[in-house]
């Protein structure tokens, strides 16, 4: 129990005020402003497009400009693992599991050979 409060209460307050609130404010704003919006309306199509582009941007950023462990892996292997996973996904008739496993295999092998 004592380990749970290592560092005092500050990290917990940080989680609430710098993690939970700035994240949930978007979730709540969405409910307040979008309660009467129709799924097929053009605004919804626009919102979906922005959400998709944002997540795609996060993916590209993680691969091209990584932080933490991925930094140790050369760019060519990071891009190759994404491209390989993508290719195998389609070859395996759109199987997410098989595609992800293929990308992982390339990444782990590459990391083992270059960074491990």
């Amino acid at each position, binding site marked *: 129990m004592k380990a749970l409060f290592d560092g005092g209460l500050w990290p917990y307050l940080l989680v609430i005020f710098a*993690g939970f609130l700035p994240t949930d404010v978007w979730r709540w704003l969405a409910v307040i402003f979008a309660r009467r919006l129709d799924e097929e309306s053009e605004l919804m199509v626009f919102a979906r497009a*922005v959400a998709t582009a944002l997540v795609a941007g996060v993916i590209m950023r993680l691969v091209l400009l990584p932080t933490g462990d991925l930094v140790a892996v050369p760019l060519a292997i990071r891009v190759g693992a994404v491209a390989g996973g993508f290719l195998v996904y389609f070859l395996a008739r759109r199987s997410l599991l098989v595609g992800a496993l293929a990308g992982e295999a390339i990444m782990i092998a590459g990391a083992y050979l270059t960074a491990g």
Partner: protein
Amino acid sequence: MSESPAGSDPASSPDPASRGGGHWYARGLFAGVTSVQGAVLFASYVGFGGLCAGVGFPTGAAIFSSLLVLALPSQLLLVGGYVAGNGAPVIALAVLLSAARLLPAVVTLLPYLRGRGRLFVQLFAAHFVAVSIWVEARRHLPPLPVEARLPFYFGMATIFNGGCVAATVIGFLLAGRLPQALAIGLTFLTPISFLLALTRNSRDLVDYLSLALGLALAPIFAAVGGRLDLLWTGLAGGAAAWAIHRLRKRAA
């Protein structure tokens, strides 16, 4: 008449609305447990737990963040900022900017989470929206009867939230015991799985366009967009995809 359609296949029961919320909650639990996206999410949270252990973020606060924040990018920014010694306002702004992507995600799910229209229930449901559950809910909820969607969703949310908390704990327990190549593989799970899930979930031209434009614009805005590059990528890529979709629709 020995064959009854209801008896032969529960999924095609002639009156699914008559089933109770508990049934659909249990179906949602099952969908959460069997979700590939969920399994990948839990693996990512094992990685998050390991990261927190490695950089000295307190165990309890890391678990608390998985319970309460439920958005991996927000949690990574939080921990990264804490370790870098950034002040709370700086961390909060970074999290605020990165979490903007949740607004359209919640907006697009809301039509399926209306329930009986109570604001409190919708706010509570919206709290659990993150990219992974968004992906699964957009696949599972539309075919369900209207009354079934909210309990089904809360079933999935229970598994996703509880699983993330458990995975964070497991990450702490595993920390330092994984070889580096496997730890790197764990870090890579989030990008590869999100990319494939977005591709699988694309239905129309606008989905494929926004996916492709987001991927293509990210490095450009990362170079010239300053600290708001991710927002620019989402807004420019999404707006361009939507504009092309509108032009084609008008031409048709």
